[in-house]
């Protein structure tokens, strides 16, 4: 009787939790409700966790060790997680998300390991359970090792590396993974050795899958891995007949997939193209880069005059802005220029930076007003009437080759058409290539002038000059 009562309360809590997850995601679609949405989903999660602890099984004194371990696990995780999340810089957000995503994937993988062991001691193991466990293990482990590699790459600890014949190896690994999983399911083979082989292949696949993918595609990969972990969580839900896990996991799985597709569309590439990782392979086609001429430089003073006497200035920020931590500096420049009657806005490319919306988050941190951030389509419409475009640490998202050079790997990707403006100033450290590793003929454009140096440094000098005018 009391047990039934407890289970009813538990299920009720799960329903409430599922509703909070849906509401939380829903509220994320408007800037002023987003924060509340996140908190609501957080409370829902807390409710689901504590309801599970107290109502899932009858609490018995002989399991004191289990309870102690659960509590200590929760405390350790909370302390470390909070510390990491509070310490991380806004510029390092993408890798942080990737890291936490990997933790979720690993959690799903470990659950599968334990449940496999359970199943082995079950006198008549169900095939359905085995399939769910194996899928959870594969997807969770791929998500874990993939996310860790993505984390390392964004952190700059791991360099892009493409193995010769990497695609073939990846396809073979994938075949081996599913071949083995299907064979184990059909024959009901419960050998732990095979399970560990499966685990090893999954981890290896995750590494090799993310390794060759260029930085320009990182947002897509993180989003994809995010939806993988969602799916792994959903398999867990299947395993335990747990609706909260199932709804939460599937919601994230489908939402993440859609987000991934949206990002691919923004870059005009198919998902298969990203996964197979043929990016950067097309560099041979840009053979015509021979007659590029020289890039013209501009002095800080000239740049300041150009800016101060313009009517309309547009800023195109990129990863370089994030690296230089120049978001506050650019906002200061904006304030000073506004005082001088210059109308300034920001043209945000959807995949500028290392994550979609990365630039928005950075500029929001610097208190740049929301309406000043233009999305790409609006920015492009405005470009004709813009006097000066300031490109700060962006490269591939303003590359005209996307429109003109059919042989370029980024051909067809929507870009910000800065060359329609009257003047262009590119703030850049050097003539180096962007993350996609391709030349940018914008730098040699008639309208363009280069202002070399660290973005923050250059901006500070510009501010000083503009003030003196």
């Amino acid at each position, binding site marked *: 009787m009391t047990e039934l009562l407890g289970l009813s309360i538990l299920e009720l809590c799960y329903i409430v939790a599922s509703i909070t*997850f849906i509401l*939380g*995601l829903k509220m*994320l*679609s408007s*800037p002023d409700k*987003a*924060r509340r949405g*996140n908190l609501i*989903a*957080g409370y829902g*999660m807390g409710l689901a966790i504590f309801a*599970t*602890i107290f109502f899932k*099984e009858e609490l018995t004194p002989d399991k004191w060790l*289990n309870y102690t371990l*659960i509590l200590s696990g*929760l405390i*350790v*995780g909370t302390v*470390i*997680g*909070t510390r990491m*999340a509070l310490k*991380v810089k806004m510029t390092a*957000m993408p890798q942080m*998300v990737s*890291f*936490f*995503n990997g933790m*979720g994937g690993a*959690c*799903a993988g*470990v*659950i599968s390991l*334990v449940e496999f062991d359970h199943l082995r001691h079950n006198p008549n193991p169900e095939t359905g359970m085995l399939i769910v466990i194996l899928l959870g293990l594969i997807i969770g482990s791929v998500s874990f090792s993939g996310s860790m590699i993505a984390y390392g790459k964004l952190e700059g600890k791991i360099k892009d590396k493409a193995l010769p014949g990497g695609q073939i190896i990846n396809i073979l690994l994938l075949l081996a993974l599913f071949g083995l999983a299907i064979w184990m399911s059909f024959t009901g083979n419960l050998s732990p050795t095979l399970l560990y082989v499966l685990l090893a292949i999954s981890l290896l696949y995750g590494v090799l899958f993310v390794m060759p993918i260029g930085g320009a595609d990182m947002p897509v990969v993180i989003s994809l891995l*995010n939806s993988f*972990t969602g799916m*792994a*969580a959903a398999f*867990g*839900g299947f*395993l*335990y007949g747990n*609706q909260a*896990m*199932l709804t939460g*996991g*599937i*919601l994230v*799985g489908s*939402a993440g997939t*859609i987000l991934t597709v949206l990002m691919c569309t923004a870059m005009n590439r198919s998902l298969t193209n990203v996964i197979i990782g043929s990016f950067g392979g097309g560099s041979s086609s840009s053979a015509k880069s021979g007659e590029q001429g020289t890039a013209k430089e501009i002095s800080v003073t000239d740049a300041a005059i150009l800016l101060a006497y313009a009517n309309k200035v547009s800023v195109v920020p990129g990863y370089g802005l994030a690296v230089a931590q120049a978001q506050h500096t650019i906002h200061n420049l904006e304030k000073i220029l506004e005082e001088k009657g210059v109308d300034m806005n920001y043209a945000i490319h959807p995949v500028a930076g290392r*994550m*979609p*919306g*990365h630039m*928005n*988050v950075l500029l929001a941190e610097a208190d740049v007003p*929301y309406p000043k951030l233009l999305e790409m389509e609006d920015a492009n419409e405005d470009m004709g009437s813009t006097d000066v475009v300031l490109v700060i640490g962006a490269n591939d998202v303003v590359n005209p080759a996307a429109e003109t050079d059919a042989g370029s790997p980024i051909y067809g990707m929507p870009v910000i058409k800065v060359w329609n403006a009257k003047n262009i100033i590119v703030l850049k450290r050097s003539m180096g290539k962007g993350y996609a590793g391709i030349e940018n003929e914008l730098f040699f454009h008639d309208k363009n002038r280069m202002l070399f140096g660290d973005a923050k440094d250059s901006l500070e000098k510009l501010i000083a000059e503009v003030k003196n005018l």
Partner: protein
Amino acid sequence: MEEILSLFYDNREFIFLIIVSVFLGIEVISNVPAVLHTPLMSGANAIHGVVIIGSIIIMLQADPTNYYALILGLIAVVLGTLNVVGGFVVTNRMLEMFKKKSK
């Protein structure tokens, strides 16, 4: 074949739930503006931390002498908590900045 069909039949309610959730997820996300993509990804990341419930169930059901399950379960609880807590805190930090000037 029969086994697969019966598997389908036994889990029909879950399959319905999955289908509805898939469409719900797509519907809910398609209204999110590009500005909020990073917080959204991070928020979704925190939500799939719900997988932690699985690790708690393992711990609750494990025999107190089954050290294999207890140790792995503990690791899973820590990993899951990191995902949940880290995810929500990071998302909150990002959104805090939007809130300041949304007025």
